[in-house]
């Protein structure tokens, strides 16, 4: 009897502990590197958030689809953890899905040209937020992944598992994998930005990177370590075929291009030095896997070493950008200051001025005759 009572007391204590851990501290750390609390995204019994008399969601999600569920929290203006704004104000490393929602029209030598918002980002399907399937590509460029299945969860594992999680024999997750935190003994960190890995269905391990926040400036930015291009190749494999395309990936060191990067300040200005040559507009991978070293690099203004490498995100953003093909800068005009979208386009779309370059005024910061930032490495201007 005493044992039963003791067991009951022990059980209550354990339950209380679980409740405290479950209910306390959930704010501000919803994912926490691993799976969040279930009812943040799911409605377990087709209860009011997902009524059976309406259109039941097969995944019991609190959104019409996975991406809409994510955007319940991640849609909003301003910086922070938002990724879809109404005014292009999310200046995050991945970019603002705003650019998928608006188009603009300009004229050039060929006549009137209307932009194609489908071409400005990954067309994740989020019905509740007006994000629809890619109207141009039925499969991923350079791959076979079907556009009709693209969502946030195509790249991010919402359950935050690493290598299949504990059910697959992995250690528990104790810290986020995004911010360089050291995991507690006998635990591991989650993947960077909850990115999916091989066990999740991607063709490569989750890339290694660290960031110190949500934004991206030249003095506060992600520090990429390894594996980004290999991971992107899960869907865009033909685009990371280095024998036929622009080299990209772990083995594609910058070599001599690193010297170009470090001396290049702007078109015609080669007075730069490595210690201050970094621009977040042209990122690179540091061939580093130590989170502590990468964390220190998130505030570094230093340019690359010769052993650092180019990756997909050197030229592209992951979510969306103001430019065709999700590039970080306009690659379709000779002079960036004359590129599209123009200031008038931005205003007409309801986008913040300068939002295309994250607050940079190209003419002021680089000069009226600044040419493509491809020249940061290639110096052909």
């Amino acid at each position, binding site marked *: 009897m005493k044992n039963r009572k003791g067991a009951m007391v022990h059980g209550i204590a354990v339950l209380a502990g679980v409740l405290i851990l479950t209910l*306390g501290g959930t704010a501000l750390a919803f994912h926490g590197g691993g799976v969040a609390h279930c009812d943040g995204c799911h409605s377990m019994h087709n209860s*009011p958030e997902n009524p059976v008399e309406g259109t039941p969601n097969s995944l019991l999600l609190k959104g019409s689809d996975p991406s809409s569920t994510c955007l319940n*929290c991640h849609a909003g203006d*301003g910086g922070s953890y938002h990724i879809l704004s109404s005014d292009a104000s999310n200046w995050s490393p991945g970019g603002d899905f705003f650019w998928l929602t608006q188009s603009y029209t300009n004229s050039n030598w060929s006549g009137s040209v209307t932009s194609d918002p489908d071409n400005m980002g990954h067309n994740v399907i989020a019905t509740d937020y007006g994000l629809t399937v890619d109207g141009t590509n039925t499969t991923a460029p350079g791959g076979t992944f079907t556009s009709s299945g693209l969502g946030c969860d195509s790249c991010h594992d919402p359950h935050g598992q690493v290598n299949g999680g504990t059910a697959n024999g992995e250690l528990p997750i104790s810290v986020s994998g995004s911010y360089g935190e050291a995991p507690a003994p006998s635990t591991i960190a989650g993947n960077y930005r909850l990115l999916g890995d091989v066990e999740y269905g991607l063709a490569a391990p989750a890339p290694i990177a660290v960031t110190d926040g949500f934004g991206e400036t030249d003095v506060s930015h992600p520090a990429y370590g390894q594996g980004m291009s290999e991971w992107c190749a899960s869907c865009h494999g033909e685009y990371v075929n280095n024998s036929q395309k622009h080299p990209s990936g772990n083995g594609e060191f910058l070599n001599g291009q690193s010297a170009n990067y470090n001396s290049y300040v702007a078109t015609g200005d080669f007075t730069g030095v490595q210690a201050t040559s970094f621009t977040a507009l042209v990122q690179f991978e540091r061939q580093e896997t130590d989170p502590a070293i990468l964390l220190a690099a998130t505030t570094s203004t230093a340019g690359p070493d010769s052993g650092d490498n180019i990756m997909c995100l050197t030229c592209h953003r992951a979510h969306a950008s103001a430019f065709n093909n999700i590039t970080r800068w306009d690659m379709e005009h000779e002079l960036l200051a004359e590129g599209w979208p123009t200031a008038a386009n931005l205003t007409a779309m309801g986008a913040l001025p300068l939002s295309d370059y994250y607050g940079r005024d190209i003419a002021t910061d680089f000069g009226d005759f600044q040419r493509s930032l491809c020249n940061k490495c290639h110096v052909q201007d």
Partner: protein
Amino acid sequence: MTGRCFSISLIALLALLALGPRNPASAGVTASFRYPLSNFSGPVRSQWAKLAVDQERSEVYALNQRANDIRIFDRHGMEIFVFGDGYSTAADIAIGEDGDIFILTTGYQTSTVHLLNYRGEHVSEIPLENIPESLSEFVADRLIYRQGSLYLVDSSSLLVIVVDEEGFFKEAHDLKATLKPALDREKRKQKAIKDSDWKQKALEYVEVNGFTVDSQGNMFFTVPVLFSAFRLSPGGELMEFGRAGSGPGKFGVVSGITVDEMGYIYVADRLRSVVLVFDPSFKFQTEFGYRGDRPSSLMVPDDLAIDREGNIYVGQAANRGVSVFRVVREAAVHEEVLEKAVVDEAIFKEAAVQEPDAPEAEVHEAVDQEADAPEAAIQQAPVKELEVHVAVVRETDAPEEVVEEATSPSQGSDTASRDFEESGQVIEEDVPDEVESIVDLSDQVEFTVDQGGDTPSTDSEKSGWTIEEDESNHLEESRDEE
């Protein structure tokens, strides 16, 4: 002996069952769906429209940022005017008492208030004058008009600037400083779970989502990452209410917030796709909406506005436009709320008298809002000892004054609110379940209340409200009335 115990237990259980669910307050508020805001082509689509009500003319304005237009609807929900050219960067809209339209536009690190006439024609920009130098980086993205004042909110920096209709600075409020105790509480919680510098750093990213001001000057705002809503009185008292969860009355991702003339508070929840209704003492009353395809359903509700007739306007995602509900607060039940508050007051007074060591009531003093220097007008929470705030109810003839917050000694004995100094003693009386904590703004203590009990059932009958789907052609209804 065992059989007797069993019998007693059985009787007690039956008695509990006979009493049924305890849900005294929710019976007082009913919400029924009326119609979506429409024009002669049908419902007007919009995505998270920003809403403002012209109380004098019973018109509602909907700013659809994605379509760059502003539409005006009459009291029957019919569109009567559209404008918006030149305001593609409009972030919010407010309506003055005389029908003036105020549009807030944003630029790169700038924001501008525009004055328009009732035709939507630009009259002038309203330059902000005498803004303290310390607020030079303030960029507003929310705008509220209340009784001759414009409240401008920078939701990222959690700053509020109040100016008059000519743009002259009146006062400012640093909500982040005011929220510091609540934020520190979160830090402590998270510190207790694991030592994580990052999560504490994340507190720097706290932002305001919904914001409104009631007729008494109380500011209400929601903070999604805290799963909470707050009321900041003109005197600087901060009250927090709401609790994270999925059940009725609980907060998911809180967004828009508005207050009616009786003091009832309406909070939109994007995640749960509902609008929650709280009485003036923060007691949960009911909720309506729910995700789905039904006309009465809501899809990720955001901004809210309510008119004097009890029509509540709900801006939604999924391009569903603005849904209109009619909220009825039964007078009898409202009287019940008042009576309960009076009883609460008596109990509280009695407790204070019976406790020999109880300190004298300390009446909260309003912060001087007329500081000479503009810098001095930046309001932060006054530093005080432990306080316990009780719902304040005073009956007067004017409905809008039925419920109000006591903020000065001049309100005397007809108020039921007092701030009491305590020394660590927890008083659980009279504070509604939904009030998670009453924050001592000096960050010395916090007052927590048991969250259990009284949560209404999900059953609509039990919870005391019904959805009456009245989407049967309100266009004809409006024609008939005309």
